[in-house]
C-alpha cells in the first residue's frame, strides 16, 4: 500500500479550476518527482495534500488514514511534512533557534512545565541542541549556526528548511522547487543530501522546474498540466510523452 495517496482531488479558486480530479501516489521510502509548467497546479496539489488549501472533492490518505479534513499541523504530526517554493525561514531568529523550534512536543512548550519542570526542560534543551548540531553538520550548515536565518543565501535557506523537517523525523517530505534560486554548486550538494535522506527511508516528493536535474535524481515522475496529471512513469517515458512535450513546447527539454 502506498504511503501517501491523493485521489481524485479537485480545487477551485473562485471560478478557476486549479485542480481537476488529480490522483498521485508515493510509496514507502520512494523518491518521486512532479513536473509541470507554471500554473500547472503542482504547488496547489502540495497545498491540498498538506492541508493549506481545502480540497473541493477527493481524498488524501496517508499511512492508511484519511487525512483530507485534518488541519496542517495535524498532518505534519502524522509525518507528512513540506517545504515551500519561497523559503519560509524564521528570518529574525538564528539558524540554531530555527532548528530548535522545529523539534516536536517539547516539554518547554507547556507553560506549567516552566514552573514545575525546569530541570527536565534544561535537560531536553541540551539533548535537542546536540541533535541540532548533528543535523546542521549533516547539511553543511554548521558554520552558520549562529547567523540570523534571514541572512543566509537562497540555497542555505532551502537546506535549513530541510533541516527543520528532519528535526520532525517525518516519514514523507514534500519539497517545493528545492533547486529554484540555488547556485549550481549548492544544487549538487542539495541533491546529494536528498538522496541520502531517501536512503535513510524517508519518502520524498519533489516539485521541480529543472527537468534535467530532476530526471537524474528520481526514478519515477508525474507530469501535470492545467490542473491535471497528464503522464507518469520513469523519467524517460514521461519526457518522451507527447502531451508533456507539447505542454513544455519543446522549450526546456
Amino acid at each position, binding site marked *: 500500500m502506498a504511503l501517501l495517496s491523493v485521489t481524485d482531488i479537485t480545487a477551485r479558486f473562485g471560478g478557476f479550476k486549479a485542480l481537476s480530479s488529480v490522483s498521485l501516489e508515493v510509496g514507502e521510502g520512494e523518491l518521486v518527482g512532479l513536473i509541470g509548467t507554471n500554473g500547472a497546479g503542482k504547488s496547489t496539489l502540495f497545498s491540498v495534500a*498538506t492541508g*493549506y488549501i481545502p480540497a473541493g472533492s477527493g481524498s488524501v490518505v496517508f499511512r492508511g488514514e484519511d487525512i483530507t479534513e485534518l*488541519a*496542517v*499541523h*495535524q498532518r*505534519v*504530526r502524522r509525518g507528512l*511534512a*513540506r*517545504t*515551500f517554493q519561497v523559503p*519560509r*525561514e*524564521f*528570518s*529574525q*531568529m538564528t539558524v540554531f*533557534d*530555527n532548528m*530548535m*523550534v*522545529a523539534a*516536536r512536543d*517539547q*516539554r*518547554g*512548550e*507547556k*507553560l506549567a512545565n*516552566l514552573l514545575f519542570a525546569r530541570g527536565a*526542560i534544561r535537560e531536553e*534543551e541540551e539533548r535537542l541542541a546536540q541533535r541540532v548540531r548533528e543535523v546542521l553538520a549533516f547539511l553543511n550548515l554548521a558554520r552558520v549556526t549562529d547567523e540570523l536565518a534571514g541572512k543566509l543565501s537562497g540555497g542555505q535557506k532551502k537546506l535549513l528548511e530541510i533541516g*527543520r523537517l528532519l*528535526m*520532525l523525523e517525518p516519514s514523507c517530505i514534500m519539497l517545493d522547487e528545492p533547486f529554484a534560486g540555488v547556485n549550481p554548486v549548492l544544487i549538487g550538494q542539495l541533491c546529494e543530501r536528498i538522496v541520502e535522506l531517501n536512503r535513510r527511508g524517508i519518502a520524498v516528493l519533489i516539485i521541480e522546474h529543472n527537468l534535467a536535474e530532476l530526471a537524474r535524481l528520481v526514478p519515477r515522475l508525474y507530469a501535470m498540466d492545467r490542473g491535471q496529471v497528464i503522464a507518469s512513469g520513469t523519467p524517460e517515458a514521461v519526457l518522451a510523452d507527447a502531451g508533456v512535450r507539447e505542454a513544455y513546447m519543446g522549450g526546456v527539454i
Partner: protein
Amino acid sequence: MEGYFIAIAISVLVYLLMASGLALQYGFTGLVNFGHVGFFAIGSYASALLALKGVPVPVSLAAAALLAALAAYPIGIIALRLGGDYLAIVTLGFSEAVRMTLQTEEWLTRGMHGLPGIPRLFAGWVEPRYIDLCILLLLVVVCVAVFFAIHQIIKSPFGRVIEAIRDNEVAVRALGKNPAQFKTRSLMIGAGIAGLAGGLQAHYLTFISPEQYVPLITFYIWIAIVLGGVGSLRGVVMGTVLLVGFLEGSRFLRDIFTGISEVQLASVRIWIIGMALICVVLYRPQGLFGKSAERKH
C-alpha cells in the same frame, strides 16, 4: 507633594502592568488585541465584587486574574482561526460587550451606579496615610514579578515558538505546531495580567464604574507600547512612563499658559498624542526606545 507623585507612579504602574500584558500579546506574539480594557474590566469587577462579598483581597485578586485569562480563551479560539485584523475587531467588540454587560446587569454590578466602598488594599494593616505608599510598593513588586515571568516565558521553548509564529506563522504550522494553541495561551496570559492590573486598580480607587473601561484605555496602552518600542520590555516601560508622564505633565501646561481655553488644551493634548503616534510609526518604527527594526507580519 509626595502623595501626588505616588498617585502618578501608581497610575504608571497600573498602565505598565497592562502594557506588559499587551507586549507579550502583540510585541512578542503578534496578536492585535484591541480589547485589552475588557480583560482589565473583568479583573476590576471580579476582584471588587468578590472582595465586597467578604473574600480576602489576595484571593479576589488571584480570582480576577484567572477569570480574565479564562475570558480570553473563547475569544482566542474563535478569533485565531481567522487573521489578525479579525482579532482586532473581535477583541474590540468583546471589550465593548463587556462594558455594556457591566452597565446593564444591575443585579450584579449595580450598573452605571458603579461600585463604591471597595475594600482598599492594606486597609486595617497599615496606617491610612501609608496605604498609598504600600500600594505603590506592592505594584512595584508585582510589576517586577510579571516582567520576570514574561522574560522567562520569552526565553523558554514556548517563547521560541511564539517568536517563530510572529516571524512566519505558515512555517510554524508546517512544523506540526498549532499556532492557535500558542497564541491562545499568550492571549490568556496577557489577559490575566490585565485582569490583575484591573483588580489592583479597583482596590486602590475603591470606586469603579463601567464608564472607566472605554476603548480609549486600550488605545492608550497601544500608544504606550508603540511609542516606547514594540517587542522590548525596556520600550514598554519607557513608553508607558512617557505616555502617563505626558498625560499628567500636560496638566501643568494649563497652570502656565492661561490664555488658551481648557477645551482647546484638551484638544491639543489629544492632537499631540495622535501626531506622535503617526510620526513614530512613520519615522521611528522601532519606537523611541526600541532597538531592533520593526518586523513584517
